[in-house]
């Protein structure tokens, strides 16, 4: 088990911060950049996963299993969210003739 301890602590915690913030920033930029609703959902998944990665890194460093259980729940919620989102996407494609986010402009008013 000592090997594992040293193996976890080889990578500094700051590296995980930087990596997860990079992924989150890419996700935010992608959600704003693209017009395809499916790509936007994928960018949301990317953001959720960057948060998960940071939670797991902190949990492994501090030896707290609660954070990993929370990551588990985030995964559950993400799965439910994607299911409903993709169902809405299918309906949009069927009724609004496309998956372009700009066609939903009228939702603003």
């Amino acid at each position, binding site marked *: 088990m000592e090997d594992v301890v040293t193996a976890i602590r*080889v990578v*500094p915690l700051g590296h995980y*911060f*930087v990596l997860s913030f990079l992924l989150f920033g*890419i996700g935010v930029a*992608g959600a704003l950049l693209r017009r395809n609703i499916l790509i936007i959902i994928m*960018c949301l*998944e990317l953001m959720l996963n960057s948060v998960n990665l940071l939670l*797991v890194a902190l949990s492994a460093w501090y030896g707290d299993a609660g954070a*990993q259980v929370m990551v588990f729940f985030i995964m559950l919620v993400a799965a439910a969210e994607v299911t409903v989102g993709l169902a809405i996407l299918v309906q949009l494609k069927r009724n609004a003739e496309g998956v372009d986010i700009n066609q939903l402009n009228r939702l603003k008013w």
Partner: protein
Amino acid sequence: MLVLFYLLAAVSVIAALVVVAARSPVTSVIALIVCFLSIAGHYVLLNAQFLAMVHVIVYTGAILILMLFVIMLLNMNEEVEKRKPLLARISAVATGGLLLLVLLAATRQGLDLQAPASFNAGVGLVKNIGNVLFRDYLLPFELSSVLFLSAMAGAMMLAKKDGTEHINLPPSSEPEEA
């Protein structure tokens, strides 16, 4: 070990960039699969074995395959997405970059955090997670089944074709009324 981390990090960041930049949705989904698999590799590096397996099963096995099915179902691969105007694109990238800067600045003290002396490396093992999940978090775990049931019912209700009234009519027989 550090080399492995850098390799996985490079793969995840490049795959995430491909997700955002790719023109075809199928390429985006494949890149997202690569990104999520590398994140599962990070979980293995952190000795979170349970989460690594669940991540591969749930994300790569279920969610992204579902997205591939939707792309196939909607025949979305051929259509070319129109680009946003240049100003919107520049501001989107600037927003992401600025958010990155703000987050880094806000947690700059966390970048050189020192771990506590007492340290339990086996925290991510299945036995440990199961103990915590079914002892401290039993009620949220059970409640998530209700969430899944409602998500399932909602998805079926949303995706159902509501074609009962014009199922036997040719599409042109309905006059356009707006």
